[in-house]
């Protein structure tokens, strides 16, 4: 199991201002794999994402990315290594145009000379044609779903090896939520990305995930492997906590 993992979180403990939130969390993501972390509000999912990204100092444990310990590397350096996050609040740049937002994703490349930038932009526009349509519109004027697409698109522009998605369906109508998650599946299938996904819409997530962790009160309580994913009732039960 250890070999060939893209991301491995070992025994992570962390929290805010002296209050511990995560208690020894172990999560790993393999190549071309979608791993979903499910759990109720306040379970510590977002904290986990922040710790992985380096926004939060890890008190104990280590983060291994492609065999390299990145626990002490600053966030922007992690991005350069190939990890990026689509955060809960999306953090897009509302007063910049759609294309400027995407180009910010390619910040670490030489935009004019590097052919990869053009390629990645094409990939993103193919995935989300609506973004191409609105390329010169200010990002703040997009609808919620479109902003989510833009946030994912911008993350893709950093050419990541693994994508962290924090509640990409939050605040989206059910139909749209489904569409977004289908796109996430496409990222795996077509681009070969590894994805760590945090979700509250349990059954939507089970549709695309390869593996599922159930998290509660800062601990991983269950892990469902690929073969278990058919037992939706059981997952739901564990999730709701009846």
């Amino acid at each position, binding site marked *: 199991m250890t070999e060939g993992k893209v991301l491995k979180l070992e025994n992570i403990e962390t929290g805010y*201002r*002296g*209050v511990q939130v995560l208690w020894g969390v172990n999560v790993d993501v393999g190549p071309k794999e979608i791993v979903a972390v499910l759990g*109720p*509000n*306040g*379970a510590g999912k977002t904290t986990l994402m922040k710790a992985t990204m380096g926004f939060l100092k890890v008190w104990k444990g280590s983060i291994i990315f492609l065999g390299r310990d990145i626990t002490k590397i600053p966030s922007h350096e992690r991005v350069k290594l190939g990890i990026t996050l689509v955060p809960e609040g999306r953090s897009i740049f509302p007063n910049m145009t759609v294309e400027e937002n995407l180009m910010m994703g390619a910040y670490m490349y030489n935009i004019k000379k590097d052919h990869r930038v053009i390629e990645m932009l094409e990939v993103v526009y193919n995935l989300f044609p609506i973004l191409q349509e609105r390329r010169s519109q200010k990002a703040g004027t997009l609808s919620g779903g479109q902003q989510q697409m833009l946030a994912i698109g911008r993350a893709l522009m950093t050419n990541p090896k693994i994508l962290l998605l924090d509640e990409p369906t*939050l*605040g*989206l*109508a*059910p139909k749209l939520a*489904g569409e977004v998650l289908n796109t996430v599946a496409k990222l795996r299938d077509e681009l070969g990305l590894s994805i760590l996904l945090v979700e509250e*819409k*349990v*059954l*939507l997530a089970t*549709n695309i995930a390869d593996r599922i962790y159930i998290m*509660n*009160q800062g601990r991983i309580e269950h892990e469902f492997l690929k073969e278990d994913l058919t037992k*939706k009732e059981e997952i*739901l039960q564990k999730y*709701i*906590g*009846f």
Partner: protein
Amino acid sequence: MSEELLKLQEISKSFGGIRALKNVSLTISIGERLAIIGPNGAGKTTLFNVINGVYKPDTGRVFFANVDVTDLPAFKRTRMGMARAFQIPRPFPTMSVLDNVMVSALFAGKFKSVGEARERADEVLELVGLANKKHELAVNLTSPEKKLLELARALAPKPKLLLLDEIVAGIPPAEVDRIMLLVRNVSEKENIAVVALVEHVMRVLKYVERVIFLHEGRVLMDDKPEKVLSSETVKNIYLGRIYD
């Protein structure tokens, strides 16, 4: 159970072209306990914000205890006996737990002196089970504790109407029962009407008498819990989403 406490008449509210609430009308009686359910984005929180005065509705009126409160600011409604627990707890971070509850008792309730308010705060903290943490700073509480604090703050002024926004989300199952039981007891004892917003209806089902199903800003159903849950429409829209 017959006297009406809160009445919403044809409430509509839009945000930048999106209509969050569409002609919502409903009545809540004194001492009644009900749950408002609906998927994310159904307009539940907006409805709460209209009830307690954070938003002003575009059209429609709000009556509380037979007074038209549509144009009253939030703090005045609170003083009339509305109390609200926020979905994402917003305690005053660098005040102690006790002080947090005291503020509520002092300003929303009839406890005008600091001493009385402290007594009331102690009482409520005992009730919700936070008495041992009362000198902690609110920011240092865990998420479930913050929820309890939110509840304690809502209960402190002895309200007539308790608005609970996702009070059990993120709370361990064992605790859910304790909290809901507590809410029911207080409600029965002090004749407080309770409106709970919930996404996972199953958890609170046995503690409410009535369920309103909200979908895309409209009231789709308003009935006994069992009836609402057995309804095909609700299943399709709400549970169906989960079972997508």
